[in-house]
């Protein structure tokens, strides 16, 4: 058993690598999911998030006290939120969201944590959310120019850094989140000369608080209960003459981006499984080739009394060994990958990870999958390979002429006769093991379609945004922000394309290598009738390039419907506008180059093996 794998060690190594890639992906994604689903909500709950936020005309201390006194409200707080802009560099402006907080020492809901500098900020100074420093491109102690709606440009000193886990990543939104006192807001807006903070905004007092944050009493994680409390509060406020402009009731206890993250992780897990299945395809190829090579041995074992089940167990054991070897490689890689991915998501979602421990169930699941995939993949080749009569198993007559030509596609290809025989050999050989070719072709096609779709999707989104915001307005904030929101999806799809291309390349390498092995005698015949080692190598490479070219064509044909479909879904969700689907011809051309280079690399080693083998060894007369 180990001897068989050792004899096929290069191919076995490729198979182990392919399974390991898939297992690494699954382990990384599962551990990220386990870490984030635990940490994200725990970290978010630690900020004591509001059950509901009501945007009303004005909130004074008396109203706040009355709300807090309600039996269905556990806690209440009020803030003002002011939109403005902040100058970055000499001419560029970024959107500014200022949270006006009356008492930084008595925050009860939506806690923010000081990280550096002043706490609370002095009048005339502003604290900045930690991720927003990269947007504003300034540091603590620097002075920036800000302007709030309708006001004049004023300067504010950045006096400290805070972490606000309730806000989305500032870079993604392209916002700057600032935290100031009511007095600072009055400084920014000269129209409020008396400094009064608690007057209604309608009377021209800009600093009045307008957002009411409440935590429901009772089960605050019961969505129905929370919505009922919020609705009661809204009616109560309206009955007292207040205008409730908006009421937000987020999913209780859940980070605002938890659903998005869950969907993304689900997609990644599905992708990891896809890679595993594709690696299973390579296992199928390897085992099919081993079973063909072992026909005589199987015949001998049967002739001396071995049962089909006994023989099958030998080869299934080989598949199990491949899975075990892959797990040894995948476990540390997956742990490192999961750690990195969890940290990346944490930065993206703007929260800190307190504990990176991966639960045991993740490892157990990976062990089960790691054994199941190669065993399932080996089932068919082993079943087919052991279902031979002793007579069939022991028969061998060199080059197998019996397979090709019986199907219509074979005969169609036989009609193409002009390019020269060496080229034809490469083209037609692809059809001899059509299931193997189809699987390799499928993997490379999916990789190409993913790559083309991703870049075409971005080109299409840009065209759509140009239409929405006006052409040539790349710097326009909304367009940039939308593009940044999409970035995570683009990167994910490109990573998918990259990993699929890697697995496809490994599959192509295995398929080509197996093809060379199976045609050892045939390639020897070519040498015997005058083919130089180089000519034989070229035939092998042509075969791989042909598969790559077909996969590129399939990827090209798939790019348009994929781009249009995904684009319409995304555009519908983001801005409900018409989606301008367009293909990225640069991506399509780039993929052609990449897939050809990949196939040339994948076939280089088998081609060199074919070229190096002596004619005598290949033909093997005696």
């Amino acid at each position, binding site marked *: 058993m180990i001897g068989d794998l050792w004899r096929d060690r290069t191919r076995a190594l490729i198979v182990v690598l392919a399974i390991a890639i898939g297992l690494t992906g699954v382990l990384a994604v599962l551990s990220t999911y386990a870490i984030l689903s635990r940490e994200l909500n725990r970290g978010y709950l630690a900020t004591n998030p509001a059950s509901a936020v009501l945007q009303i005309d004005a909130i004074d201390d008396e109203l706040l006290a009355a709300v807090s006194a309600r039996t269905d409200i556990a806690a209440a707080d009020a803030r003002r939120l002011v939109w403005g802009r902040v100058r970055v560099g000499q001419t560029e402006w970024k959107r500014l969201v200022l949270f006006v907080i009356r008492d930084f020492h008595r925050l009860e809901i939506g806690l923010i944590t000081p990280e550096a500098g002043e706490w609370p900020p002095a009048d005339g100074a502003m604290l900045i959310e930690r991720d927003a420093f990269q947007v504003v491109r300034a540091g603590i102690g620097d002075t920036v120019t800000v302007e709030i709606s309708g006001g004049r440009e004023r300067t504010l000193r950045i006096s400290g850094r805070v972490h606000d886990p309730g806000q989305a990543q500032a870079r993604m939104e392209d916002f700057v989140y600032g935290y100031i006192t009511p007095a600072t807001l009055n400084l920014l807006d000269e129209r409020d000369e008396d400094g009064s903070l608690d007057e209604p905004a309608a009377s021209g007092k800009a600093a009045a608080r307008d957002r009411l944050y409440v935590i429901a009493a009772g089960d605050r994680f019961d969505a129905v209960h929370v919505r009922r409390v919020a609705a009661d509060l809204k009616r109560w406020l309206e009955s007292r003459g207040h205008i409730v402009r908006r009421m937000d009731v987020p999913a209780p206890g859940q980070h605002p981006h938890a659903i998005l993250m869950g969907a993304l992780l689900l997609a990644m897990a599905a992708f990891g499984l896809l890679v595993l299945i594709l690696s299973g395809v390579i296992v199928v190829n390897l085992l099919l080739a081993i079973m063909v090579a072992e026909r005589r041995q199987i015949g001998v074992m049967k002739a001396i009394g071995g049962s089909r089940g006994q023989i099958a167990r030998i080869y299934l054991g080989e598949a199990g060994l491949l899975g075990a070897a892959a797990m040894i490689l995948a476990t540390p890689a997956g742990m490192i990958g999961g750690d990195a991915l969890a940290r990346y998501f944490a930065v993206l979602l703007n929260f800190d990870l307190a504990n990176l421990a991966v639960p045991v169930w993740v490892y157990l699941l990976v062990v089960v999958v790691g054994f199941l995939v190669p065993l399932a993949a080996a089932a068919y080749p082993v079943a087919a390979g052991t279902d031979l009569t002793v007579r069939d198993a022991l028969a061998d007559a060199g080059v197998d*002429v019996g397979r090709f030509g019986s199907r219509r596609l074979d005969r169609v290809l036989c009609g193409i006769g002009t390019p020269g025989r060496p080229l034809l050999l490469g083209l037609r*050989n692809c059809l001899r093991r059509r299931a193997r070719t189809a699987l390799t072709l499928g993997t490379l096609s999916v990789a190409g379609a993913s790559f083309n779709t991703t870049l075409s999707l971005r080109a299409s989104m840009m065209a759509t945004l140009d239409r929405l915001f006006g052409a040539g307005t790349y710097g326009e904030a909304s367009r940039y922000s939308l593009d940044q929101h999409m970035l995570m999806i683009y990167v994910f799809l490109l990573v998918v394309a990259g990993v699929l291309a890697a697995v496809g390349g490994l599959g192509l390498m295995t398929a080509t290598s197996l093809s060379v092995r199976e045609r050892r005698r045939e390639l020897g015949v070519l040498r*015997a009738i*005058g083919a130089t080692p180089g000519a034989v190598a070229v035939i092998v490479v042509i075969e791989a390039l042909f598969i790559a070219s077909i996969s590129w064509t399939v990827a090209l044909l798939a790019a348009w419907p994929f781009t249009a479909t995904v684009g319409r879904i995304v555009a519908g969700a983001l801005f409900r506008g018409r989606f301008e689907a367009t293909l990225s011809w640069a991506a399509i051309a780039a993929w052609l180059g990449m897939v050809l280079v990949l196939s040339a690399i994948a076939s280089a080693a088998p081609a060199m093996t074919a070229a190096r083998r*002596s004619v005598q060894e290949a033909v093997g007369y005696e």
Partner: protein
Amino acid sequence: MIDLRAASKRYRTPAGEFPALTDVDLHVARGELVAITGKSGSGKSTLLNLISGIDRATTGEVTVNGVRIQTSSERTLARWRGATVGVIFQFFQLLPTLTVVENVMLPMDFLRQRPVSRRRPHALALLERVGLGDQAHKLPAALSGGQQQRVAIARALANDPPILTADEPTGNLDSETAGAVLELFRSLAAGGTTILIATHERDIARVASRTVALVDGRLAKGAAA
């Protein structure tokens, strides 16, 4: 034409060194049809391999058509073989994905001496010569064993080589088809082609101009060298 002097071939095996041929001296003149006979494992195929440049002697000298085989590179030997030696195998070894005529054109494609436009007509003429002109566009799988062997002979003749080597060429044919193939060899030899046939069948020895017998890798005593 073919000159072997004290040619020996030893293979390394896990059980130690195995002598396939030992001190073989052989001279074959142009137009001879030589039958190399011997039991299975006697070294017949190894001798053919040394002559066709498929393998190299461990010691001794092998000179074929003026070329010293052991000093030539693989690439040089490939081109030399394409032009000088036509190789015929026991199991025909036609390329299953190429049609009959394409199989015959393949050596011409490798050697590239004949203009592209003249390769197909030449291949068709060779197929006519072996009696398979009407089968030119079929795949090998559609032919009988005897027909496949005749295609293999046509392929071996594609570049008009002065030498043909054939390893058990009638081993998988019925007696009638085998007779037709041998007749073809005899007519080729009469036309000046040097032919070496490894065989353990007496029929071939009867049509040969000379028989060389091998016993345990050595020329049998009394064998004409």
